C-alpha cells in the first residue's frame, strides 16, 4: 500500500500543479482589470490620435482643463507608471482618492533598466507605460530616450511661470523633485560643516576618511565627478582659492581628473551603496565624511543616523539629480497621464497632496510657489548645470579613468 500511496501523492501533486496553472490562468483572465486594459487599449489608441499627436511635446503642453482630462481619463483603463522612485506610489494613492474611477499601477524600475525596457517595448510596438518618472543616466536618458521621442516632455503651460529654471525651458523636462550628491558629516561630531571646498577632501585631515558609494555600480555618483571634469576650470579656480596656487595636473588632463586622482591618493574608500556610506559615518561617532544623496537625510530617524548634508561647497555644491516627469511615446492613456503628472506637480497652485511625497528634507521641488522643507531654497542652491549631452559623451572617459586608477 505504501507504494500506492506514494504514486498517488505524486499524481495528486501533478494534478494540483495543473489545476493551479489553469486556475490561475482563468483568474487572471477573469480579472476585470486586465480585461478592461485590453479593451481600453483599443479604444484609447484612436482617441489619442484624435487628440492630435501624442508624440509632440508642445501639443502636450497646451492648455487643458482638469475637468476635461478627468472626463477623458475615466473612460480609459488603468494608468501605467514606470518610476525609479517609490514616491510615485505614494502620489498614486492620493491621486486615486482624488480622482475616483482612475486606477494607477506603478512599476518600479531602475532608470537604466527602464530605458532598455521602454526601448525594447516600443520597438516591438508595445506601448505600455503612460507616465515616466526617471532619473538621468549620465545624459543617456536625454540622448537615447528624449531625443528619440520615446519620453516626451510635459509641462502644462499654466504651470510654467511658477517653475524654476533650468526646468522651465532649459532642461530636458520638468523635474518634480531635485536631489544631488553631496558631502555628509556626522552632526554629533561636527557642530558645523567640516568641508567648504571640494579640495578639502584631498588634505591630510581627511586622509582615509572619505567614503563614497561605488560610482562604477551607481553611475549617478559618477555624474558628479564627470561634471567636475566638464567644469574643470571651476575646479582649478577653487583649488587656487583654497591653496593659493595654481594646480599641478601631474599628468592628468585637467583639474577635474586631478581631483579624482588626489582623492584616491588620499585614501578614498569605496562602499557598495549610499546607505553603506551613511552607515559608515552616521552609525557611531565618526569624524569621517562621505558622499551620499541629499534625500537620504530623511532616513536619519529610522536608521539611527545623525548625519547632515553640506549644502554649500566651493566651487559648486553638486550637480542636480533630477526626478524628471515624462509622458511615454504613444501613451495609451494620455489624458490620465497628464492628470497624474499635474497631480504629482501639486496641481496648478502647488498645494495638491500629490506633491507631498516629493517635497521632503533633502529633496527640492523646483517651483517658486512651493515652500521647501529644507533650510535653503532651490534657487539658492549652488549647483552646476546638468549638461546631458556633455555628460553623455564624457562619462565613459571618466569611468575609464576611475577604473584605471582605482582597481
Amino acid at each position, binding site marked *: 500500500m*505504501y*507504494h*500506492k500511496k*506514494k*504514486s498517488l501523492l505524486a499524481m495528486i501533486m501533478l494534478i494540483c500543479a495543473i489545476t493551479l496553472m489553469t486556475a490561475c490562468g482563468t483568474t487572471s483572465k477573469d480579472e476585470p482589470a486586465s480585461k478592461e486594459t485590453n479593451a481600453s487599449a483599443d479604444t484609447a489608441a484612436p482617441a489619442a490620435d484624435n487628440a492630435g499627436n501624442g508624440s509632440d511635446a508642445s501639443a502636450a503642453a497646451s492648455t487643458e482643463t482638469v475637468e476635461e482630462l478627468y472626463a477623458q481619463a475615466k473612460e480609459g483603463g488603468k494608468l501605467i507608471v514606470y518610476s525609479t522612485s517609490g514616491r510615485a506610489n505614494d502620489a498614486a494613492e492620493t491621486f486615486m482618492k482624488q480622482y475616483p474611477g482612475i486606477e494607477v499601477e506603478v512599476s518600479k524600475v531602475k532608470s537604466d533598466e527602464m530605458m532598455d525596457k521602454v526601448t525594447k517595448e516600443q520597438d516591438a510596438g508595445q506601448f505600455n507605460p503612460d507616465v515616466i518618472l526617471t532619473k538621468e543616466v549620465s545624459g543617456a536618458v536625454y540622448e537615447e530616450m528624449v531625443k528619440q521621442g520615446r519620453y516626451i516632455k510635459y509641462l502644462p503651460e499654466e504651470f510654467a511661470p511658477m517653475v524654476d529654471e533650468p526646468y522651465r525651458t532649459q532642461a530636458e523636462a520638468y523635474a518634480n523633485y531635485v536631489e544631488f550628491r553631496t558631502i555628509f558629516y556626522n552632526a554629533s561630531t561636527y557642530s558645523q560643516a567640516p568641508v567648504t571646498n571640494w579640495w578639502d577632501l584631498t588634505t591630510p585631515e581627511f586622509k582615509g576618511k572619505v567614503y563614497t558609494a561605488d560610482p562604477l555600480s551607481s553611475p549617478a555618483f559618477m555624474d558628479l565627478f564627470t561634471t567636475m571634469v566638464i567644469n574643470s576650470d571651476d575646479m582649478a579656480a577653487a583649488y587656487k582659492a583654497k591653496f593659493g596656487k595654481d594646480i599641478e595636473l601631474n599628468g592628468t588632463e585637467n583639474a577635474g581628473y586631478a581631483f579624482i586622482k588626489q582623492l584616491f591618493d588620499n585614501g578614498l574608500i569605496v562602499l557598495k551603496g549610499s546607505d553603506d556610506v551613511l552607515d559608515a559615518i552616521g552609525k557611531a561617532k565618526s569624524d569621517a565624511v562621505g558622499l551620499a544623496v541629499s534625500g537620504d537625510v530623511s532616513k536619519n530617524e529610522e536608521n539611527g543616523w545623525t548625519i547632515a548634508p553640506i549644502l554649500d561647497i566651493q566651487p559648486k555644491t553638486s550637480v542636480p539629480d533630477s526626478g524628471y516627469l515624462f509622458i511615454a511615446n504613444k501613451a495609451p492613456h494620455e489624458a490620465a497621464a497628464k492628470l497624474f503628472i499635474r497631480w504629482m506637480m501639486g496641481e496648478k497652485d502647488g498645494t495638491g497632496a500629490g506633491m507631498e511625497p516629493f517635497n521632503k528634507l533633502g529633496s527640492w521641488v523646483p517651483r517658486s510657489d512651493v515652500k521647501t522643507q529644507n533650510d535653503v531654497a532651490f534657487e539658492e542652491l549652488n549647483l552646476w548645470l546638468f549638461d546631458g549631452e556633455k555628460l553623455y559623451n564624457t562619462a565613459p572617459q571618466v569611468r575609464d579613468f576611475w577604473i584605471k586608477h582605482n582597481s
Partner: protein
Amino acid sequence: MGATAIELRDIQVSLDRKPILQDINLTIERGDFMTFLGPSGCGKTTLLRTIAGLQKVEEGTIAISGKEVANGATDFHLEPSKRRLSLVFQSYALWPHMTVYDNVAFGLQVRKMPKPDIRKSVYAALDKMRIPELADRYPSELSGGQQQRVAIARAIVTEPDILLLDEPLSNLDAKLRVEMRAELKRIHQELNTTIIYVTHDQHEAMTLSTKVAVFFGGRIVQLDRPRELYKHPRTLQVAQFIGNTGLHMNAVDGRMIGDSSSGYRLQTPLAVVPLEHASSVHVGREVVMTVRPEDIKLLVNRIPGSTAATVEAIFPSGADTHIQLQAGGASMMARVMGEPDCEPGNLLFMHVDTEQINLYDKQTGVRIEHRHTRQQDERAKENDHNENRLSYSR
C-alpha cells in the same frame, strides 16, 4: 507443428557503429525451445532484442509466422508490441511502483481489455505460475524466485506466440535455478509456445532446449540438437565453451600420421589413436583431440591402448568423482562413478574411448570428420576388461 515461427535472413546489427551481429540466418520452428548459447558479448542478447523489435536491423529480414516484421533494406520496422511476442528480462524489469497484479495486468490494460477479462487473465497467468497469493504484493517484497515467476506471468498473460527469455535464471541461486528450470520446461509443454532462451550456461541449454544455437563473435557457429552439440562441438572454441564450468573438457595436442596402407593414426602424448575415415590430406596436420572426462576409463592394470597416468588430485562430488591425472605431460580429468579406490600419487592406466573423441584442426579450430557420424543411440562397445576397471564411468 513444423510451421516456421521465426525466420531470420542475413541479419546484421551494429551498436554505436560497432558490428555486433553478422550474417545471422536462422529458422525457428513453431513449438521449438530454442536456446541462444554463448559467452557474454557474443551478440545473443542483441539478437533476442532484435527479434523482439527493441533493436533495429541494419540488413536482413525477420519474419514472424511468415509475416515480415523487419527489413533492413527498406528500413521497415514493426513495433515490438505488434509482433505478438513477450520478453522476460534478465533483471525481470518488474515495475517497482506497481503491485504484482498491476505489473501483470499492465499489458492488458494498455490494450483496453475490459476489467473483468483482465482480472480473469491475470489470475490465470498467476495460477499458471502458481503465485496467485502474491497479487497484492510489491516486487520489492518478493524473493528472487517469486519475482521471476511474476516476470514470466507478465510475459505469458498476453498469450504471445513467442516467448523470449533473456538469461532468466542467472540471478537465482542454485536451488531456485533447478526449480525454475523444471518450471520453464513445464510452461513450455503446457503453453506449447515457441520459446527463445538466451543463456551462457551450457547446462541450462542442454537440459531445456530442443535446439541450441551457439554464438561466437556475433555469428552462429553451430546450430544443433543439444545431444549433438554435446557430442560433437563444431569448433574447438565451442568445445571448450561447452567444456567450461562443470562440464570439463580435456584437450590434448596431437598430430596425424600414417598412410593409406598402414591406416591413419593420431599421435598424442596419451596414445596413438587409429582413425577410420581419415585420408592422406590429413597427414601431418596439427590437431587437438578433445575427450570428455566420462569417456576416460581408469584401469588398475595396463591393457592395450591404455596410458599410464599419475593421480594428481581427487574431487569427490557425491554421485561421481573427478580425478585429475598427469599423463605424458598432459593434465587430464576423468570422471568415475561413486568413490574411487585411489589416492594422489597412485599410478593408474587410462583408456580413452576413441569413439567419443573429437578432433580439431589446430590452426582453424574446425572439427575434422574422422568417421561417419554415428547413430544417436549407438553406444560404444563394451570392452572386455570389466574386472580390470576402477569403476564404471557410465
